[in-house]
C-alpha cells in the first residue's frame, strides 16, 4: 500500500526538496506549514511518517510531538524531528523526544537521502517485526 508521509515546515524550500524526494520514492506526500496545520492533517489522514521542523510559528515541532502523543499511542508512526544543533532545542526537550519510541532527531543541515534512508529502514524493520 502507498505510504503516507506528512512534511511540516514553514520553510517552503525544505518542503519542496523533501516533497520531490519522497514522491520520487513512491510515497504519497502531504504538507503543512506549521504544527497547527500539521496536527489537523495527522488527525484526519493518519500518516505513516511525520517529518517536522522544530522551530515554526503557531506550534513548534516539539509541541506537535506532544500533541500527537495520544494518537500515536493508538497507532504509532515514525516521527522525524529536524532541528539545528544550536540551543533552539534544549537538551531536556531532546531527551524527552528521544525517550519516545519511533522518534528520531536529525540535525540540520540534513541530507535528504539520509532521511529517506531512515524512513525506508523504519518500514523494513517494521515489516520484520510483523
Amino acid at each position, binding site marked *: 500500500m502507498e505510504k503516507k508521509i506528512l512534511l511540516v515546515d514553514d520553510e517552503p524550500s525544505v518542503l*519542496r*526538496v523533501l516533497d*520531490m*524526494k519522497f514522491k520520487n520514492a513512491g510515497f504519497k506526500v502531504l504538507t503543512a506549514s506549521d504544527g497547527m496545520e500539521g496536527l489537523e492533517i495527522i488527525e484526519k489522514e493518519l500518516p505513516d511518517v511525520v517529518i517536522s521542523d522544530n522551530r515554526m510559528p503557531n506550534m513548534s515541532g516539539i509541541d506537535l510531538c506532544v500533541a500527537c502523543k495520544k494518537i500515536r499511542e493508538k497507532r504509532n508512526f515514525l516521527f522525524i524531528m529536524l532541528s539545528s544543533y544550536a540551543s533552539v532545542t534544549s537538551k531536556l526537550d531532546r531527551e524527552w523526544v528521544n525517550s519516545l519510541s519511533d522518534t528520531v532527531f536529525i540535525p540540520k*543541515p540534513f*541530507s*535528504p*537521502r*539520509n532521511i529517506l534512508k531512515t524512513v525506508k529502514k523504519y518500514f523494513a524493520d517494521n515489516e520484520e517485526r510483523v
Partner: protein
Amino acid sequence: METEIINWKEYIDEEKFENLLEDIFDSQGYSISLFNNEGKKLVRKNRDKQNHLVCEELRENENFCNEHYLKAQEAITGKRGNLSFCAKNRERFLFCAPFKTSSGKNLGAIVACKRAKVFDSHGDNLEENEEEVNFLKGITSLLADKIYQDIEIRHLSAELNAKYEELALLYEIGEKTLVSDSKDESVEYIVTRAMETVNPSLVVWSVREENKNIFYRNPERESEDKFISDEIIMEICRKVSRMSSRSREPLILNNLNKYREFAGIWQDPINVLSIPLVSDSKGFGSLNFIECNPEKIFLNDQLKLMESISRSTVTILKNSELYEKLQKLFFNVIRMLLGIIESKDTYTEGHSKRVYQISVQFAKILKLSRKDIFDLQWGAILHDVGKITIPTEIIKKPGKLTSEEYEIIKSHPVKGAELVSTIDEFKNAVKGIRYHHERIDGKGYPDGLRGTEIPLIARIIGIADTFDALNSARPYRAKPSRAFVLAELKQLASTQLDSLLVELLLNNYELFIKLLDSEDYELFEDTNIKGIW
C-alpha cells in the same frame, strides 16, 4: 536555433494534467493531441460519448493529424514564422500551433480538433472564427506556461536537493576534520561519505608520494557490477591521475574508450571522475571515482561537489603533514636533550627510554586514561632532565659524595620540573618529574610527600626508575642477580615504593624484565611516541 528537447511528460502530474485538459477542451467540444518537440505524441484526449464519431475518424485518418502536426512543426522551427493556423477538412476543424510558453520556450506542438459543424457553418473562411482561434492560442500558451513552470520547479527542487546533500556532506566533513587527528581515518571517512552521495562502482585514492593506490569498493554496487581486475583499474587510475594532476583541475571522462590514451584498455565503456588533491604548493595525488555502468555518466554538479570535498581532504592532508613535521622537530629537540643527559653518565645510557617503557607498561595494566598516559609518557622520558644543570664531575664521581654534592644531586627533580614547566602541554607531566624521588614513607625529596600525596604518575616513574637502576651495572658493582632484585623490591615496598605497584610488578615480572632489553615497544598505538628514538 537549437531546440532543446524537453520530455515534459516526466515532469507533470499526469492525472491532474489530463483532468485539466478535459476541463478546458471537453467543454468546448475538442479532441486534443500534444506532441513534444521530437514529434512524439505525449497526450491524447478524445471526446468520448457525445463526439464518438470524431474519435473514430481521427483514428482512421491519423495522417491528417500528422500532416498538420508537421505544419505546426514548421512553425516551431521558424520556417513558417510564429503562426498558429487552422484548417478545415470536410467536417473537421483543426487547430495546430506550436506548444510554446509566453517566454518562447518550445515544448512541441498542439493539435486540437472538433467537428466543423459544431464549430462553424459558414464554410471555409476561418478568419471569422478569430475569437475561437484566439481562445485556443491563449489556452495553449497558458498550458505551456503551466507545464514549463512545473518543469522549472522540478529542476529547482532537484538542484536544491543537491545543495542540501552538499551542505550536509560538507558540514559533516567539517566536523570530522575538527575531531579526528588520524589522517587515514579522516580520508577514509570522506571517501565513504562521498561514495554514498555519488554512488560509483569504486573510488581509488592514488597516493602520490608513496606511489600506491588505495581501493574503496562500494558495497552497494558489488552485486551488480561486472568484475574488472585491480591491475586494469590501477592502470586507468595512473593515467587519469597524471592527467588531472598535471592540469590541476578535476576531470570527467565519460566512456574512456572514446579517448586515444585509453584505447583498448578495457572492452566495456568505463566512466571516470578524477579530482586532483593539490594545494598551492604540493600535490597529494588524486581521488578517482570509477563507474562501470556506462549508463551512469558523471555530471558537472557532482564534479563541483567533489571539488569542494577535495579541498577539505587537502586541508586534512596538509595539516597532518605539518603536524608530522612539527612532531619530528619536537622529537629531535627532545632526543638532543636526552643525549645531553645521558652523555653525562655513560652508565645510564638508555635509562630514560627504559623508564618510559616500564611506565607505559604500568599504564597499560592500570588502564589509565589517554590523558594520564600522555602525562606519564613525557614525565618518564624527561624525569632526569634536571641533571643537565648538575656538573658532570659530581655525576661521574667514582667515590663517595660529600653531603654538599649529594644536595646538588638531589636538586635535579626540582630543576627538571622548572625547565619543563615552561612548556604548556607538559603542565601535568611536570608532577612526574618533580616527585619521582618522593618516598611512600615521606622520607623522599624534594617535598617529603607521603603515600597518595604523591601523584600516581610520579609513583609509577619512581618504581620504574628504581627497577631499572636495580637491574643496571654501576661503577662500583656488576649487574645484580634476579634474586637480589626481587628481594630489594620486596623490601622497598611500602617504604620507598607504592606496595600496590610493587605487587603489580612482581605479578607481571616477566613482562617487565623483557622490556629492559627490548627494542620493540609498540605499547600504545594511539599515543605512540616511539618516533622519538
